[in-house]
C-alpha cells in the first residue's frame, strides 16, 4: 500500500463521477491546443507569404506620395542615408532586414531604364523573389535589424564604415526586361552614366517594375548621380507580429522627418488573424478556468463529502491532516496531468486534421504545447482542488462514529 495506490484505486472505483470534470478539462485543453497549433502555422504561412512579397514597410521622404509599391523609390525626393544607420542602431525589435535604395533614370540604346543603387546583401535578402538567382535566402524570424554585414554583427562597425561591400563597384545586376530588350547576358559589359560595368547576373522575371531596373552599388550610383549620401527610400522587412504591435509607429518616432508606410492590407489581415486567434485562445482559457475549475471544485467538494467517513476512519487509524491533504491534491495532480496529456493529444489530432481545411495550412504537432497543456491543466486542477482538500484535512473525525 502506497499513497498512489490509495488514490488510484479510488479514482478507478468512482471513475464515472470523475468523468465530467475530466471531460471539462480535456475539452478546454483540446481547444486551446488546437487554436494555438493552427494559429502558429497560420502565422508562419502568412509570414512566408509576406516574405515572398519582399519588404512590407517603406521609409520615404515626407513629401513623397506612394503610387506604386514597387516603384516607391522612383519619385526624385530623397532622405539622408544616415537614416539607415539610425534604424540599424536602434535595436527596434522586428526589423528583419533594411534595404536602402537610390534610383536615377538612365538611357541605353535609346530606351529609358532605371539605375537603382542598393546595398547588396540586404537587397537580395529583402527580395526572396530573387532567391532563384541562388545567392541568398532569408530565414523566417523576427530578429533585430540586419543590413547584411559580412562576418560581423557589430553595429558600431556599421556606423563607422557606413558601407557594406558585397557588390563590386564595377558590377551590376540587370532585370529580366532590361536583359531582354538589350539582349544582355551574364558577363556582358555595360556603359552607364560614363562608367563601365560588368553584368554579374541577369535576374529572373519578378513581374514587377524591378524587371526594368539595373542594380548597382548604392554608393556608386550616388557618385554617378552626384547626389551625395542620400537615398530615395528604405525598404524594411518587418516581422508581422511586430508590425501588429506598432512597429510602424516606432519607426516613425525614430525618424520623425520621414514617412513610414506599410502594406496595410496584408498587415491588417495578419493583425486581424493574430488578434482573432489570440482572443479565441484567451476566451477558451477563461472558459476552461471557470467551467473546468468550477467542475473540478464541485466534484472535489462532493467527493470530500461522500468520503467523510473514510477520511474520519483514516484519521482514527492515525492519519494526520497533512496526509489527507496530500490524498486529495495527488488526485487533482493525476486529473490535471491526464487532462493535459489527453487534451494535447486530442487537440493536436484536431489541429493536424482540420488545420488544412480551416486555415489552408499544413499543421504539424508542436511538442512544446504539451508543456503548456499539462501546465495549465495541472495548475487549474490543483488550485480548484485546494479548498476542498483543505476542508477534507480539517474534517471532524467524529463523523466516523455512529453517534456522538
Amino acid at each position: 500500500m502506497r499513497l498512489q495506490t490509495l488514490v488510484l484505486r479510488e479514482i478507478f472505483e468512482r471513475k464515472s463521477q470523475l468523468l465530467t470534470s475530466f471531460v471539462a478539462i480535456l475539452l478546454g485543453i483540446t481547444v486551446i491546443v488546437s487554436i494555438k497549433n493552427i494559429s502558429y502555422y497560420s502565422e508562419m504561412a502568412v509570414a512566408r507569404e509576406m516574405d515572398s512579397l519582399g519588404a512590407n514597410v517603406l521609409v520615404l521622404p515626407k513629401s513623397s506620395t506612394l503610387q506604386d509599391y514597387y516603384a516607391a523609390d522612383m519619385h526624385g525626393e530623397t532622405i539622408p542615408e544616415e537614416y539607415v544607420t539610425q534604424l540599424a542602431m536602434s535595436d527596434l525589435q522586428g526589423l528583419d532586414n533594411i534595404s536602402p535604395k537610390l534610383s536615377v533614370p538612365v538611357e541605353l540604346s535609346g530606351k529609358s531604364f532605371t539605375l537603382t543603387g542598393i546595398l547588396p546583401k540586404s537587397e537580395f535578402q529583402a527580395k526572396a523573389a530573387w532567391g532563384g538567382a541562388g545567392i541568398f535566402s532569408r530565414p523566417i524570424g523576427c530578429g533585430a535589424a540586419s543590413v547584411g554585414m559580412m562576418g560581423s554583427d557589430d553595429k558600431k562597425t556599421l556606423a563607422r564604415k557606413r558601407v557594406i561591400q558585397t557588390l563590386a563597384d564595377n558590377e551590376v545586376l540587370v532585370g529580366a526586361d532590361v536583359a531582354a530588350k538589350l539582349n544582355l547576358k551574364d558577363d556582358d559589359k555595360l556603359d552607364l552614366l560614363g562608367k563601365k560595368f560588368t553584368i554579374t547576373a541577369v535576374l529572373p522575371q519578378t513581374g514587377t517594375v524591378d524587371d526594368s531596373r539595373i542594380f548597382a552599388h548604392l554608393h556608386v550610383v550616388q557618385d554617378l548621380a552626384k547626389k551625395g549620401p542620400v537615398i530615395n527610400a528604405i525598404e524594411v522587412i518587418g516581422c508581422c507580429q511586430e508590425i501588429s504591435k506598432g512597429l510602424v509607429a516606432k519607426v516613425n518616432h525614430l525618424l520623425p522627418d520621414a514617412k513610414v508606410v506599410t502594406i496595410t492590407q496584408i498587415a491588417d489581415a495578419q493583425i486581424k488573424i493574430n488578434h482573432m486567434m489570440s482572443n479565441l485562445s484567451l476566451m477558451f482559457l477563461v472558459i476552461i478556468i471557470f467551467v473546468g475549475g468550477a467542475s473540478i471544485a464541485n466534484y472535489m467538494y462532493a467527493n470530500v463529502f461522500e468520503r467523510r467517513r473514510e477520511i474520519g476512519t483514516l484519521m482514527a487509524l492515525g492519519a494526520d491532516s497533512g496526509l489527507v491533504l496530500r490524498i486529495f491534491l495527488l488526485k487533482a495532480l493525476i486529473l490535471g496531468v491526464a487532462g493535459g496529456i489527453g487534451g494535447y493529444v486530442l487537440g493536436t489530432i484536431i489541429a493536424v486534421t482540420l488545420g488544412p481545411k480551416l486555415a489552408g495550412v499544413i499543421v504539424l504537432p508542436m511538442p512544446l504545447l504539451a508543456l503548456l497543456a499539462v501546465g495549465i491543466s495541472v495548475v487549474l486542477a490543483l488550485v480548484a482542488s485546494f479548498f476542498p482538500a483543505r476542508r477534507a484535512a480539517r474534517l471532524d473525525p467524529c463523523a466516523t462514529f455512529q453517534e456522538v
Partner: protein
Amino acid sequence: MLRMENVSKTYRHRGHLVKALDGATLHIPGGDFVSVVGPSGSGKSTLLLMLGGMLSPSAGRVLLEASSVYDLSAGERAKMRREKVGFVFQTFNLVPYLSALENVQVPLFLAKVDEKAQKDRATALLERVGLADRLDHKPGELSVGQQQRVALARMLANDPAVILADEPTGNLDPETSQQIIGFLEEFNAEGKTIVMVTHDPRAAKRAKRTLRLQNGAITAQGAGEDGCWQPDSAVA
C-alpha cells in the same frame, strides 16, 4: 492505562446547550475489559472518542499512559492513535475500494511500514481471523461478519495497547456477535485493554467491568458477569 479526570463535554445545538458528558471520572487499568452501556444519547460514543484522542473535552483531562492526550499537538495525537489505539466501528468503516488485504495494510502504511512487511503482516492477521481465502475480496464482496473480522484484523495491524470498540456487534447476527466478542476476549487475554460501547447486554456481560452512562454522567459501574450495577460511588 486510561484515565479521565472530571471530564465534561458541552456543545451548542440550535441555540441550546447540550451536555454530552458531565464530570466523568474513571480509571481503566492496563489489561482491563470495560463495556460502556446506556441509552442512546447518553454520551457513550463521546466518552469513547475522548479516550481515543478524537474529541477534545470542554473541561477535565484525559490521560493515556500518564500523558495528557489533549495537551499533545494534533500531529502527536495522530501518532498516538497510530501506535497505541485501535478502533473498531459498528459499521466496520472499511475502505470500499480496497481489498481485505489492502484495508488491513492501511494502518501499516500510515506507520510507514515497507510494502513487503505490510503484506506479510496483513496476511497473517487475516489468517488469524479466518479470512485467509478472502484476501483479495473487497468489502462489498464479504458478509457483514467477515467485514467485521477484516476490521478486527485492521485494528490489530499496529499491535495497539488499547482497543476502543464502538458497538462492534451492533450490525451483526447473534452468532457472529458471539464470534466477535470471542475475538475481543482473546485480544484481552493477550494483555490488551479494551473499552467497548454496546447496547447488547449479552456482549456487555462478557466484559470484566461495566460502566453505565445516563445523560452524560457515569451512574453505575460493576462487574460484567453478574450484571450487578453499583450506585454512582467511588470510581476505581
